[in-house]
């Protein structure tokens, strides 16, 4: 310990509360986070008879039957496919429109820019419940009801402002001299933006994509309201487990576990940028 402090006095100053205390706090907190998820996983590996019949901390007769049910029934697995389709569509659309806009906000003053920026943000603040009914009528009237694109467009309501916000934060950190040098070197705007600027803010684009993915993936109210059969998201499919014979807890838990998987995979890819991303590029 003495050696370490001699080398880095600052580190010691930071860890004034004992290292052990920290570990205990973090362990307790992570345990609090994992317990409910573990319980879901636990239930998904049990049969319904076991879930209702006895109480045990882990499955006594391990079974994958619940997962088999989901992965072999088209009505079930299409829910995942539908969700993935509109989530990806939404992410692509959001980023495509947000990139140039964020560049404009980060580089130029223009008429009404501050009001526009705040107005965009207000859409992130709009409760989906307010928009559920009008969206339903709007998309029905233009014949897009129950399509993936309808949900993708509806989710743009909150994802586009968010993407603009995040990207603007990242772009602000890129020195303006780079733009100017590129223009002097004869780059046009399009070529400069794609060839030079986008690689510079690659991490920002990744983070913005992650957030669009996340908020589109977790949203239920709008996606459920705008679909009936063909584009039904997995979240809405899960209500199927409530039948005449009561709730099929095992399948419900298995479906829940499967919805956590894509998120867990995506987190892994952006793990180094999570902190910066959550600060919306502002740290």
């Amino acid at each position: 310990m003495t050696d370490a402090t001699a080398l880095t006095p600052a580190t010691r100053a930071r860890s004034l509360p004992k290292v052990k205390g920290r570990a205990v706090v973090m362990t307790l907190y992570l345990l609090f986070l994992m317990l409910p998820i573990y319980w879901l996983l636990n239930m998904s590996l049990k049969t319904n008879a076991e879930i209702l019949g006895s109480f045990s901390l882990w499955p006594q007769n391990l079974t994958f039957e619940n997962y088999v049910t989901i992965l072999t029934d088209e009505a079930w697995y299409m829910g995942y496919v539908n969700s993935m389709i509109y989530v990806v569509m939404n992410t692509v659309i959001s980023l495509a429109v947000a990139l140039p806009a964020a560049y404009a906000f980060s580089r130029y003053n223009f008429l009404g820019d501050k009001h526009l920026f705040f107005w965009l943000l207000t859409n992130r603040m709009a409760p989906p419940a307010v928009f559920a009914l009008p969206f339903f009528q709007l998309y029905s009237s233009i014949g897009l009801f129950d399509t993936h694109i309808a949900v993708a467009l509806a989710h743009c309501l909150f994802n586009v402002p968010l993407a603009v916000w995040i990207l603007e934060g990242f772009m602000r950190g890129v020195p303006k001299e780079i733009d100017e040098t590129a223009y002097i070197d004869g780059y046009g705007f399009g070529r400069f933006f794609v060839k030079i600027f986008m690689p510079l803010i690659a991490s920002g684009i990744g983070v913005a994509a992650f957030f669009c993915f996340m908020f589109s993936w977790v949203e239920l109210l709008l996606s459920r309201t705008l679909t009936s059969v063909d584009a039904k998201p997995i979240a809405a499919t899960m209500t199927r487990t409530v039948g005449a014979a009561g709730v099929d807890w095992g399948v419900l838990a298995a479906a829940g576990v499967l919805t956590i998987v894509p998120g867990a995979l995506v987190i892994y890819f952006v793990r180094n940028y999570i902190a910066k991303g959550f600060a919306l590029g502002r740290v």
Partner: protein
Amino acid sequence: MQQKTTNHKAWFLVLPVLVLVAFSAVIPLMTVVNYSVQDTFGNNQFFWAGLEWFQEMLSDERMWNALQRQLMFSGIILAIEIPLGIFVALNMPKSGFWSSFCLVVMSLPLLIPWNVVGTIWQIFGRVDIGLLGYTLDALGIDYNYTQDTISAWITIIVMDVWHWTSLVALLAFAGLKSIPDAYYQAARIDQANRWKVFRFIELPKMMGVLMIAILLRFMDSFMIYTEPFVVTGGGPGNATTLLSIDLVKMALGQFDLGPAAAFSLMYFLVILLISWVFYTVMVNLDKKGM
């Protein structure tokens, strides 16, 4: 901060966003405004009703009660999540494997679809099959979130703390990481104690990100719908019927378009107003270079 040049042609870059958001926000919002000033007797016949619905809603106890519950909910979760999030962030490992490990595990609840969050806690809290409910029951504590108001409230609050505290912690952690070592060295030379380091170095440096955290948590908790709906369905009685749940009941359940629209607009305005205050504070902090 960098100097920006004035260039009105930048509007062309913003245009796609403008068109898209106008399509997905302005048109629906105008529909809501339309409904809020009209009355209908079916058959798509509408009559001008003026501000009648607004007056009706304002004198309706149902909305005031929902608003009260909503304010209570948002207040409680902010009071728990912000301090707890800061506390967790202060205790996180600063670098290395355990730091990334904590980051990944903590982000996990944020990426779970909201109805699954509801489902997880619905199961977890059940007295017959859930770990939490079963344990509390075995300890002799009277706990039943479907029938008891207090239990229902505790369940949805603990659920929200479980779901979102990590967001606050991650933001605070990002703020902490941006503090240069020199600050801590200076504090050591001055022999500042732990509390003073927190109060005069860490807290001011975290202020910017904390404002973002408060803004996000306030907005999202104020429009929360799915999670409490899945767990309690707004019950027992109306005990956990928050604003969004009440609104969806009114608009899609009973199809009372006029009152629901008036309700929507007032609901949106309240959020806008409070968010605007936060936003102004945040922009000012940004300007000061925090």
